[in-house]
């Protein structure tokens, strides 16, 4: 399973019991199904020596059957304000990513290896923003306790991760802790959900942290505002086009 900004911002509702890894993942994906939403987030980049830098952005997510489209626009600090990102994630097609840079007034298409690198200086990569299952991902139930399942996922060949271990809560199918390993099976990153809130039965991970274990840096992500089940008209198709990005820089 590609682990994702979805964990930080997606919506989790309790669902039926399952007992195989594939079923757990399938149920977790169903539980984490990203519906149309508009969220405001703060990202705090924490350096090795503890210095903090802040980014604020708005994220709009729209799901149409299997296609999930995400639009991100940064509003703070002012040197990145206007930077916009679109991710079109469809399991049947190559993920499409567009990045608009206001200084250049131009949209870049992000290709291949670019998606494996850091997203806006944070410990998240563009790849982490993808929502769909990677092609060819396989899942194994490693262990379980009364409260969690521990599942190892082997992502597809195009991923920078060799293995991803998710600790999935049995109560709500939310991955509370996700460990990322590189292709040599060395620990690379760790994502932890620190705080959740419930909105009309939907669990929202409002505070999470991604730690880069080799660089000893961390990025904390906070969801400060959210609106769920937003009608399609508020996130129209054109939100995810080059034309929209260039008009709204």
């Amino acid at each position, binding site marked *: 399973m590609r682990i994702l900004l979805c964990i930080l911002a997606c919506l989790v509702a309790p669902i039926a019991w399952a007992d195989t890894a594939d079923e757990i993942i399938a149920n977790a994906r169903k539980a984490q199904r990203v519906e149309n939403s508009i969220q405001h987030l703060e990202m705090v980049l924490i350096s090795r020596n503890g210095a903090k830098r802040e980014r604020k952005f708005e994220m709009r997510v729209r799901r149409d059957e299997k296609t999930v489209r995400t639009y991100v626009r940064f509003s703070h600090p002012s040197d990145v*304000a206007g930077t916009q990102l679109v991710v079109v994630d469809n399991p049947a097609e190559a993920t499409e990513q567009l990045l608009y840079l206001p200084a250049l007034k131009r949209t870049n298409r992000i290709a291949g290896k670019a998606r494996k690198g850091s997203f806006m200086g944070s410990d998240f990569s563009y790849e982490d923003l993808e929502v769909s299952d990677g092609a060819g991902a396989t899942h194994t139930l490693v262990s379980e306790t009364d409260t969690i399942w521990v599942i190892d996922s082997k992502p597809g060949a195009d991923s920078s991760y060799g293995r991803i271990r998710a600790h999935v809560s049995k109560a709500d199918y939310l991955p509370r802790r996700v460990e990322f390993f590189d292709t040599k099976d060395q620990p690379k990153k760790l994502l932890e959900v620190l705080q959740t809130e419930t909105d009309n039965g939907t669990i929202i991970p409002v505070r999470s942290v991604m730690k880069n274990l080799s660089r000893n840096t961390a990025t904390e992500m906070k969801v400060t505002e959210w609106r769920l089940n937003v009608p399609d008209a508020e996130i129209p198709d054109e939100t995810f086009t080059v034309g929209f990005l260039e008009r709204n820089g």
Partner: protein
Amino acid sequence: MLIPLALSLAASAESPPEVGLTIEPLVAVDASDSPDSADSLESWLWIRAKAKQRTDHGTWFFAVNGEHNVRVGEDTEAIWQLDVGETGWSGETGPVHLRIGNLVERWGKLDLTPIIDVLNPRDLRAGPLATVESMHVAVPMAVVQAGVPKARAELSFSPFPQGDRIDMIGSDWSLIRPGMLEGFVTDAAGWSGGSAALLSGTIDQLGVALEDLQPSTMRALSTALSEAERPEDNGLNGNLGARLELEGSGLDVAFVGANTRSSMPKTSLNPAIRTMLQTESLPELTEFDALVASPPMETEWLRTWMAGAELSTVLGPLGVRAEAGWWSNKVVQQQWLSADTSPAVSVGGGLDWAHGSAVFVSVEGRFSRLLSPPDSLFLTARDTIDLGATARFTFAADRIQLLGAGLYSPTFDEWMLRPELSYRFSDPISLGIGGVWIQGDEAPPSTLLEALRYAGGPMSMMSDNDVVFATLRWIQ
């Protein structure tokens, strides 16, 4: 002044306003063996204040750009300028999307070797020291767009187009560099010719007067030369552009067409003056009639049709960009302050490779051909090839950034390199050091006459302008 207005509008808005202030001083010190008259130190201070407010009915945006330039040489010059940046309103009005105000409307996909980015004038006064943000000059414009998400048609109209901002005289990045005009007049006082006995004394006095001239007067002369004969801003001489954008999976294409006023004037030096300069002799008394029969220089701001296309896609691990353009009547500079026109075509492309936001490498190239070139050409050729490259590496969670940009022209065998290393102390403050190195086959001109008949390329002409610089960026 505009920022409080933006904030007051925020009262009825649904989201908080984005307000930003950037203060960016840069100090550059001459690092090459340039003439004594050249500026030994140059500083720029760019101040950009901006605000943006999204409301239920659209988006208001405001920007003010301040700029202070100090040039220390034989004279110390200090120039302050305040401009309205991108300011206006953008939103849906019925079936169309409208943007109106003082706008930058960028066409094209290439950054270092642009081809079809024709709607806004460029600010070239700081040469390679300029920031990316300060290169485009916002002008009054209205842009109307309509269509469906994957196909859009757009019309833009700019009623009061401006020429590119160039210092003709007096800076190290201008055609007539510091001291050239004064040196020319001193030399001309000693020229032979039938009228020498009559004129030498007067020219000599003119030289003294020029030496005593305040730099501000010289700049006014420079502005007058750049703006001479500019058509009135009655809206009838505006720039009109049309654009059709199509988007598919992994691909976007746009076709553009425009009728624009050239950003450079077509000039023609009085033939008698030209002969005088070429022969370095004063005219015979009998030739005086020809000298005064027409103005020293005639200037026309011609219009041209242009058509072009742009494309971007991905190919494996690479981002691919391309653009091409055709002009019916492009102004082409010639030696001795003259110009002519020619139909022209250009085609260019670029490849990008990136690794997240930490590594970005890009190469670009452009081929241009003048289809009916005049005999003598200045700073260009019938066929020109320009190559460019950019590399940006970011380390330590975005704190350290190494940025390099380079241009190479096989046509003139000349290149320019601009490396910069910056360190971000905190979110608001970063400090950078860097340099500009320029090398060319042809030695740069040292006198006015050498400048007017220069046969090298645009980078060679500035190849004694190597500098090292330090820059600070404060963002709030």
